[in-house]
């Protein structure tokens, strides 16, 4: 196993830790096709983790064989190393183990904690919500205009009475369609790794930015899906009106604004995008973006599995 493989993986990891996410975060094209952009973000996250752990592993296991599978097999079967095992090999192996355990552990913990929190929310809600006029939606008696959904095995879509009072029927239908899109496309799963990795790697400036970008893209994607299920020539404006009404009305003391309030800029982006829709991404650009995402995953995988060049 040549050090070139480890070096190539380390370079890839460095690129994916900052310049690539920074570029993707600033790019203008994601709002033209949020779904393709979401796929790209998943690839960046996955390839980043794979290449940093891979780089450490490849270097650490180098004395045992010429490729990662061969070296791993030698270690597992208790074969002695072919070359001298130095201190730096042990250090990188330990680092690889710690990092892998942290990333996977935090992901798992985050998932468990979120599941527990959602169950608690469902329990709190189930006591006070009643069926709403909109199909699949539940009505919560509360003056603040809010709508949200709790994803999971038994999803729940909630409208507050304040929201129902504030919006007309077409706008309410748009809100419900938006929330249903989140549930149907399991958007919480797109967010999970970014939530977890922001918690795991607070020192990585890209982690927070990536999380925010993915959050905004998920909302834009839900807007797009909602528009498709709505009819009427003015449906973009209807959804935009609903967003503005809900955002403006929620400023009161009835609802803690909390961490969600920082999304002010993202709300504006959504409204602008609805009122003046950007042209959709041309076919070739979609293919190019998706091919890049696949390539991003294939490169570290190939570097890890193939014998050293």
């Amino acid at each position, binding site marked *: 196993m040549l050090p070139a493989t480890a070096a190539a993986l380390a370079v890839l990891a460095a690129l994916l830790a900052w310049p690539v996410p920074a570029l993707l975060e600033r790019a203008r094209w994601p709002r033209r096709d949020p779904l393709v952009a979401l796929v790209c973000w998943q690839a960046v996250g996955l390839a980043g983790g794979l290449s940093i752990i891979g780089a450490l592993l490849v270097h650490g296991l180098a004395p045992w064989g010429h490729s990662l599978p061969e070296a791993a097999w030698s270690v597992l079967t208790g074969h002695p190393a072919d070359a001298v095992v130095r201190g730096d090999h042990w250090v990188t192996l330990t680092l690889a183990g710690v990092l892998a355990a942290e990333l996977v552990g935090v992901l798992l913990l985050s998932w468990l904690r979120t599941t527990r929190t959602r169950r608690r929310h469902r329990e709190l809600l189930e006591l006070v919500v009643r069926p709403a006029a909109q199909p699949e939606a539940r009505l919560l008696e509360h003056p603040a205009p809010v709508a949200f959904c709790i994803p999971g095995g038994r999803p729940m879509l909630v409208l507050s009475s304040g929201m129902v009072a504030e919006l007309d029927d077409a706008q309410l239908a748009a809100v419900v369609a938006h929330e249903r899109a989140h549930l149907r496309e399991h958007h919480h799963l797109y967010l999970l790794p970014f939530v977890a990795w922001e918690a795991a790697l607070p020192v990585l400036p890209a982690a927070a930015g990536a999380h925010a970008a993915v959050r905004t893209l998920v909302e834009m994607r839900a807007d797009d899906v909602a528009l498709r299920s709505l009819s009427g020539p003015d449906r973009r404006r209807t959804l935009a009106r609903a967003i503005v009404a809900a955002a403006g009305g929620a400023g009161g003391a009835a609802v803690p604004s909390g961490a969600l309030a920082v999304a002010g800029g993202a709300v504006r982006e959504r409204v602008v995008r609805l009122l*003046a829709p950007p042209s959709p991404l041309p076919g070739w650009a979609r293919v190019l973006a998706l091919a890049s995402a696949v390539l991003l995953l294939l490169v570290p995988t190939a570097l890890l599995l193939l014998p050293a060049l």
Partner: protein
Amino acid sequence: MASLGELERTVMDRLWSASGPVSAAELREGLADRGLALTTVHTVLTRLEQKGFVVHDEARPRRFRPRATREEHAAELMHEVLGQAGDRQAALARFVGGVDADEARLLRELLDRG
């Protein structure tokens, strides 16, 4: 047969509208039209207690009351589901977060212009 969840809501409604602590037998009488067995009422009350929504006193028979008023429950719910205390990820799919007054004005202008 009503689901447990629906029964929990019905019992909770009764407890909220009652003027004071209520025993399980009284609850069953209040829900006579549903023909519930006393054990069912107890099951529902136990579940509500485990979830922390109901407490009982030490009288014989035990009498139950809600831990918080309906309004407190709603306020707690909003705080937990949408507030900072809550997990951002858990309430991921809130339709839109609140914005400050300036931003709200800007959004309305956008809408009028567009």
